[in-house]
């Protein structure tokens, strides 16, 4: 079994370095190209955990986490796009036009804005055969279909959406949009609780994305430290830089070992919090090691710094995780004042 995961990891890594890395800088400016989306689909990364009879790849959670982690190393935007597409299909496995989603021909997304840190998203209104209202900060809000909540149920909306793109800090491979909903083309997918539960169950996957961001940028820092010299020595020879690279690596390895070696919500909650922390730390460290070159687009480093922070806001509400951890560590609820 272990070997299978290793084979999968190598396959995704190879695909990622060949297909994603090559266009990763362009993705930041022009978005994820359709051709790449179709290649990702052809690899079976969309509908990763759906069973084969539903058109998916039938992977378990660990296999799916490997996909997210390895793609995030080259492009956090791409990893997040895969995550959103998979989330959509998990919640709505019999969606209309599923074939087009699974083949990467059309984009779908899930409105996560009610779950962002300090969100004040107002529920949409469903009445008289129409769904209407506004949602701010929808990731990939220009997608063909958006799963959105009215506070008690969730709906897949397929038309009547007007998305206004905004400037945004991170994950620039996708738009961030304020979306106006006024649609009669929608289907009820289930209860809002279904989405909430699915998100809570995604802690391992979110941890994998953060871990990929941290590892991807630190690997580049380690490479750079070998070729860049200052005061007649490569950067890697200087103890402070060496220590930073090693410290980040140590944490990444330990979190990865723990994340993939444990199951259950407690382990995933811990991993998500810790992986977020290392992503923030590593992206800052890597940019600093790259110096002035890290600060400009051309080197493909600054995007990790932006993306880690944006992800930390989108997935920054740790109240659910803290609740789980509290039950284990303290035996009851804590940390509420």
């Amino acid at each position, binding site marked *: 079994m272990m070997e299978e995961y290793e084979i999968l990891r190598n396959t995704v890594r190879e695909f990622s370095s060949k297909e994603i890395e090559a266009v990763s800088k362009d993705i930041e400016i022009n978005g994820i190209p359709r051709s790449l989306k179709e290649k990702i689909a052809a690899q079976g990364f969309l509908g990763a955990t759906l069973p084969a009879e539903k058109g998916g790849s039938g992977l378990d959670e660990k296999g799916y986490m490997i996909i997210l982690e390895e793609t995030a190393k080259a492009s956090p935007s791409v990893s997040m796009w895969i995550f959103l597409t998979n989330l959509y299909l998990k919640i709505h496995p019999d969606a209309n036009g599923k074939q087009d989603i699974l083949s990467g021909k059309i984009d779908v997304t899930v409105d996560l804005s009610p779950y962002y840190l300090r969100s004040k998203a107002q529920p949409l209104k469903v009445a008289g055969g129409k769904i209407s209202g506004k949602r701010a900060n929808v990731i990939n809000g220009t997608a063909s279909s958006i799963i959105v909540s009215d506070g008690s149920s969730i709906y897949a909306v397929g038309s009547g959406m007007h998305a206004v793109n905004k400037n945004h800090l991170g994950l620039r491979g996708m738009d961030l949009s304020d979306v106006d909903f006024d649609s009669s083309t929608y289907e009820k997918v289930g209860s809002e609780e279904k989405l909430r539960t699915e998100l809570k169950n995604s802690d391992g996957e979110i941890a994998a994305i953060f871990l990929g961001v941290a590892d991807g940028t630190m690997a580049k820092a380690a490479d750079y430290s070998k070729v860049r010299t200052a005061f007649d020595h490569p950067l890697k020879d200087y103890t402070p830089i060496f220590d930073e690279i090693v410290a980040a690596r140590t944490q990444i390895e330990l979190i990865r070992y723990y994340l993939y070696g444990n199951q259950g919500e407690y382990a995933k909650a811990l991993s998500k919090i810790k992986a977020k922390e290392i992503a923030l730390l590593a992206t800052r460290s890597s940019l600093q090691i790259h110096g002035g070159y*890290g600060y*400009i687009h051309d080197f493909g480093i600054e995007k990790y710094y932006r993306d880690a922070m944006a992800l930390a806001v989108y997935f920054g509400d740790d109240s659910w995780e803290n609740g789980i951890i509290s039950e284990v560590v303290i035996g009851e609820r804590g940390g509420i004042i």
Partner: protein
Amino acid sequence: MNFELDEAQREFRKKVEDFARREFTEEEATKYDLQEKYPEEVVKRMLKEGVFDYSNPWNILVATEALCKYDAGMGISMLVPFFGNEVIALFGNDDQKKKYLGRVFSGQAKMGLAVTEPGGGSDVANIKTTAVKEGDHYVLNGSKMFITNGDIADFFVLLARTSVEKKKHQGMSVFIVERNFEGFKSNKIHGKLGVRATDTAEITLENVKVPAENLVGEPGRGFYYIMTFFDISRAYVAAQALGIAEGILERAVNILQKDGPITSQPERVQFTIADMATRIEAAKLLTYEAASFIFNFNPNPAVTSMAKAYAAETAVYVSRKAMEITGIDGLSSSIERSFRDAKIMEIWEGTSEIEKLVIARMLKVGDTQ
């Protein structure tokens, strides 16, 4: 000891803040950030209104802090037309001061400082640009990287190697190089993470003839002149970082206060705010202490480097913590831009790593056993 600005300084600061509040609107700041455009018109208005007072270094420090509080990209753009002037003021001759600084201070010209090269920023002694004397001029060849004002300045104070000596930091000299000298080329760098209103470029020099009279000070003393300049300018960079941090804290608190008093926030958020504010206050003391040493002609390089490194770290820390406590509100506000701006503080005018080396080297300790 007096920890307050005097009345004249407070009035000056108010004047600068009024200008920044009026000119650095969210709409304008977003525009210059998005378009990576230097706010030429705003700089002209600032000069015309006499907001900037170059005669008093304390006022420059106060203005730097105040402008960066409102927007770092636009704020720094207001200050950089004069960037590097201290090199000429301290080491140049009267003709150079008259010819070049006169135009800069009257707003007729902009200048820049060209030290960093593609192969080295921190390691200044390792620069490769050469200047060879031929008759009544020098011939310069090489390239310069990440040069502020590189695409817009009329002339540069530029460091080049004039001779090969045993010690690397010897044999370098400073020249005043005009943009219109033949063989001078600049190439604007696009895609900076932050401070995108400021102009940054790569410069190439191909057989550029520079008149011998444009040599600043003595030949071979260039490294010393530039390091002396950094000992001054780092206090101003500390003030930039300080201003950024102050602005972010203010905006973060204002966002949170929309939900009610700060005391109604969870204590972890209150602790974070307390921590941000404490670090800002400490950075402020260091910055003003370093400036005080410099302006009294008794510079303390260890303290200057402490101020620069600590204020930069504070700006980055505050920018990240502000995001964490304001969440999606912060992410879709101007804090997002400040978050990108803040990171440059740990890189330019000496990375934090370089500052720490300076601190360790220059630290004065007593003889406690």
